[in-house]
């Protein structure tokens, strides 16, 4: 997600820390969303057993790979559009 953070030249210590913090927050938020989405898609909510079975384990691994791939695609797409528009707001707000 680094394209979000590469823009402005950084000056003060506080700004540098704030940027690092924002980057960590973003990664941690992504992890939480991934857990939410992949649990829902891969784990049978009847909980017949306490262990992950083979199917669930494989599904979780692939789910992470696909989630990252979607993240990359979305990021590429938005970068491309940001470059086209140059400086215009991307959203309605």
């Amino acid at each position: 997600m680094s394209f979000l953070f590469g823009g402005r030249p950084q000056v003060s210590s506080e700004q540098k820390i704030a940027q690092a913090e924002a980057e960590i927050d973003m990664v941690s938020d992504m992890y939480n969303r991934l857990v939410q989405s992949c649990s829902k898609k891969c784990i049978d909510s009847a909980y017949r057993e306490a262990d992950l079975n083979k199917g669930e384990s494989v599904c979780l691994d692939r789910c992470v790979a696909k989630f990252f791939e979607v993240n990359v695609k979305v990021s590429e797409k938005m970068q491309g559009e940001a470059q086209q528009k140059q400086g215009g707001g991307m959203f309605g707000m």
Partner: protein
Amino acid sequence: MDGLTAGEQRELQSRMEKKQMKEFMNMYSNLVQKCFNDCVNSFESKSLTSREESCVMRCVDKQMKSSQRLGDRFQEQNAAMAQQGGLPGR
């Protein structure tokens, strides 16, 4: 926001800039999660199928257009409401 001095407005402005960054990151993450949830439903392999990939691309396009449109309407309604004197009771 009425009744703030210039100095107070500047302080508010600077806090708003931090918020905007957060808001943007949140919208980005929402977009990734929503398009993943809606488009990716098979886990036979660890790469996106071409069908899933093009669904994701259209999803991003459509969701961004939708946010834009909703944002425009939202601002119109907000402006109209401010002219009527805000929500009843202000």
